[in-house]
């Protein structure tokens, strides 16, 4: 009964949050949005890689398959770190009062490029795991 009550409470909270979102307004800053996106991507990757770990333990895929996944994962790791670094660079330049606009613009372009690369790496990794029928 307690579980049912908890589920009902959770459903109520979700409904309320959906209804109240227009009332509360969307006050999320770009920094918070970027952080949430990176955090969400990391959670996705961890879940996917945990699924791959279970798959390897159960089905023992070939070393070539494992090497592909490992390379894709390490590529994503580097890309994700590059995004974080670029994000912090943009934030530091934007918050500084004497940053030349050109520097901010260049850093923003680099950040966008890093985000694009990370998105590709994430997509490649998830696609690769799905091609092996890994449950994600």
């Amino acid at each position, binding site marked *: 009964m307690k579980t049912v009550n908890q589920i009902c409470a959770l459903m109520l909270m979700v409904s309320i949050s959906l209804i*109240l979102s227009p*009332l509360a307004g969307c006050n999320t800053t770009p920094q918070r949005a970027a952080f949430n996106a990176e955090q969400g991507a990391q959670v996705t990757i961890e879940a996917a*890689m945990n699924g791959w770990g279970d798959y390897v333990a159960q089905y*023992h895929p070939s070393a070539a398959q494992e090497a592909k996944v490992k390379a894709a994962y390490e590529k994503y790791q580097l890309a994700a770190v590059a995004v974080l670094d670029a994000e912090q660079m943009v934030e530091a330049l934007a918050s500084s009062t004497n940053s030349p606009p050109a520097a901010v613009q260049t850093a923003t372009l680099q950040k966008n490029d890093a985000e694009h690369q990370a998105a590709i790496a994430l997509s490649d990794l998830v696609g690769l795991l799905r091609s092996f029928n890994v449950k994600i």
Partner: protein
Amino acid sequence: LIGKPSEPEIIMPPESLQLALFILQEFIKNEPAIAGEIKSLFTKADPTPNDWHALRARILARSYESFVPATALTPAPAPALAIVPAAVPAVIEKEAIPAPLAEQPVTGSPAPQWQVGNPALV
């Protein structure tokens, strides 16, 4: 003709749905505690540098092997830091060891003195 029975269609008039949502909204407006909690979900503070560092560390901390303990891949070998001994004969005769440069006796003509440029002009 045995087929899957058609599922009953549940149709809720839009007016009823709007009324239900309106009542719920009014209820929430009159409950400031709930409204505050939900509003806080949409107005989180900006991430601090510590938040960024923690996320960076979290990304870098998870190696492939930590996710896949049963991996058949051998981890990449670490760079060889140990000094590998060269093939040295077991017995080294004293004569075979050349003297260091500083201790070598000077024999023959002295080393040539290099001069840059035309000596007549210097």
